[in-house]
């Protein structure tokens, strides 16, 4: 394990190391470091710090190892936030980690994911060069979109060192409504109805037990009126506000609902597959949360991971193992087993200094 203190040291380690390299940030997603081969692990937790924050531009630039809770604190002082709602912030996850893993939280539904907020990126390539893509302004189409490519890449193209992100003004007030639809089928039906409405939900989640949960945010003065009109969609809405409300989402984002022994898997899905997936998973007593309007399944898994691998493969889904041990972080069918991905890998990492895709 290497603990570089600077970008120059990362470059030196890259040039001198032999085994394929893997990168570790805050260590909150150890499943991503799963592999069969001997590797050189590079820990970036000391390469941290906010390099530039320009509230008036709604942008900041930080080193990859910067902890997200440090960033959130600084943004919050200026009534701004990262609307892609990064998960595992309280557990110590880093900006580089959340970007390389491609993780977004519940508010991805209303605002977009980490891919939609990354503006610029620097990375150390396999031959030790420091490369850049994108820019530091909120709009840019010059050159290839390497910042987006790096989202979800798990450091397989290079070591991400520096990231520029777009941020948004924080809403004045938030509120949450919950309905108990009794079962997943009814919950999915209700979720689809809400997703076609004109209400600008920030988050739209459902649980396997039939709970439907929505979050709204905006100006304090209009919040109650909006709540009243949303509550009319279905009887029995329970409303949460203020601290209780924010703690609810924080607990979901930080996966406090998982048992310590649980593995955690993220699976991109579509709303139409929720019931089918849920029915399969229910046989294994897995914990299931369907977030982002039925576009992301978060699965807490306690059985053999090989079984889940098979279930996902049979359903044509790809999963990402965040917590748990296996021979790879990717489960199910390969979402990127294609010529384009292979060519990109060959161009960015010709000597296979990083793990294969």
């Amino acid at each position, binding site marked *: 394990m290497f603990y570089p203190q600077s970008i120059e040291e990362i470059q030196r380690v890259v040039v001198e190391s032999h085994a394929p390299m893997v990168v570790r940030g805050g260590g909150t997603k150890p499943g991503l470091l799963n592999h069969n081969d001997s590797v050189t692990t590079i820990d970036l937790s000391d390469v941290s710090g906010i390099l530039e924050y320009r509230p008036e531009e709604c942008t900041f630039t930080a080193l990859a190892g910067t902890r997200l809770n440090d960033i959130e604190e600084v943004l919050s002082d200026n009534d701004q936030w990262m609307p892609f709602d990064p998960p595992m912030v309280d557990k110590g996850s880093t900006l580089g980690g959340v970007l390389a893993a491609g993780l977004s939280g519940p508010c991805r539904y209303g605002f977009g994911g980490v891919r939609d907020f990354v503006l610029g990126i620097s990375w150390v390539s396999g031959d030790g060069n420091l490369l850049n893509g994108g820019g530091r302004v909120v709009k840019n189409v010059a050159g290839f979109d390497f910042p987006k490519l790096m989202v979800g890449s798990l450091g397989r193209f290079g070591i991400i060192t520096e990231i520029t992100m777009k941020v948004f003004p924080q809403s004045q007030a938030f509120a949450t409504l919950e309905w108990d639809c009794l079962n997943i089928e009814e919950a999915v039906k209700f979720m689809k109805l809400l997703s076609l409405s004109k209400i*600008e939900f920030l988050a739209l989640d459902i649980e396997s037990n039939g709970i439907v949960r929505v979050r709204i945010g905006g100006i304090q003065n209009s919040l109650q009126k909006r709540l009243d009109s949303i509550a009319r969609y279905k009887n029995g809405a329970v409303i949460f506000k203020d601290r209780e409300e924010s703690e609810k989402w924080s607990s979901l984002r930080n996966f406090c609902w998982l048992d310590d022994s649980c593995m955690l898997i993220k699976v*991109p899905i579509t709303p139409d597959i929720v019931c089918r997936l849920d029915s399969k998973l229910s046989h294994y007593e897995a914990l299931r949360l369907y977030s982002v309007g039925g576009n992301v399944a978060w699965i807490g898994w306690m059985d053999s991971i090989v079984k889940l691998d098979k279930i996902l493969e049979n359903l044509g889904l790809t999963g990402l193992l965040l917590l748990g041990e296996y021979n790879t972080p990717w489960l199910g069918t390969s979402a990127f087993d294609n010529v384009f991905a292979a060519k990109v890998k060959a161009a960015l990492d010709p000597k296979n200094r990083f793990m294969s895709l």
Partner: protein
Amino acid sequence: MSKSFLDKLKDIVTDEQVLTAHSELIPYESDGLTAFKALPRAVVLPNKQSEVISIVRLCHEHSVPFVARGSGTSLSGGSLPNERGIVIGLNRLNSILDLNIEERYAVVECGVINNDVSEASKHYGLHYAPDPSSQLVCTIGGNVAFNSGGAHCLKHGMTSNHVLGIKAVLPDGTVVQIGGHSLDSVGPDLVGLFVGSEGLFGIALEIILRLVPMPEGFRTLLAAYPSMEQAGDAVSSIIDAGLLPTAMEIMDNLTIKAVEATVHAGYPTDAGAVLIVELEGEIVEIEEEFKCLRKIIYESGAYNVTSANNQNERALIWKGRKGAFGALGKISPAYIVQDGVVPRSQLGSALAEIDSLSEKYGIRVANVFHAGDGNLHPNVLFNNSDEEMLEKAELLASEIVQMCIRRGGVITGEHGVGMEKREFMNDMFSDKDMDQMLILTDIIDPHQIANNDKVFSRSRVPGI
């Protein structure tokens, strides 16, 4: 180009689909950027995806360059033909293959017109959000290639933020499917890389687009200011107040006068600048936001504020903005439009610098731009029959781009690099950054045939 290539092309499609006569090629000699012109050896108009794939494979086999073209609205010369190659016109691939309302996505072919996606989905209360000014004619394939923006991308984002998946034919003829139907994904964001690659990675045949509900309501206002600087400062105040309008657009006096002379949108012609701000969302929410917005607008020195009270009044405010480029065409025989981006807080000083440059060269510059994201659109007005003036205009435009880079901005916010800004890429990226992009291009397109004279000046070889 050998005879056998054209013969083989006609084995793939009918003779009627291959244009070679000079008069047939003329309409394809340039795109929205008319400063560049070139005649291709042939234009081929495939009717279906399988024909496109066969054509690309033939080009690869014969190392014949191709330029994929939709409606030819690129403002950076992105679909300028290559004289040694062919143009593949994709307008006939215009089917909306799937419109899934419950899942909120559409699967479209590359030749589908941007606005047709919204038209097809509006009955269900949905729309496709990216709205480039050319949305009535431009194609989704072109939008994907150039990651097109539009007036409303301040809140909604660009094309890239709305593309979920792509079926593409790579320049070597391989067909790949990247991304999917889900809003989220795992693994590297290959869709993100493909969008905005300006045709260098091949042709997107089918695109899965995200649809979003139409907003419940809009609030639009037009504010007149004595100076550009005050209008620019108002934009910063709006952002500082925590508002997130869908659009914030500024026009200078020269543009206002041009617009009023043609489309009569009711803009005050004595204003130094007008600012258009639009809010959208739930009605109760935007009414509250609008109160806050009006307060900021008055405090920022606006002397005349018009609010749209209905859809017709809103359309009138936008009519002026959307007609701006056409109106400028009436007051100048030719113009160069740049689309560099500066940090938003530098808008005022950047515009002052453009004014000084305009004075230095003795050439008029009309400014109309997406102020919310610092995306300038200076229009350098000149007479194209005057060689000396053309040269000066190009120098002036080039100085504006350099200024954007110097201020920490970028050379293009939404039009793309194309032919027009190739020489500025080196000013924005280091040699090593450029090498990485060229290496990637060469691996994806080993014969250098897919729009390969765009984005990079090929005088440069990676590593040299």
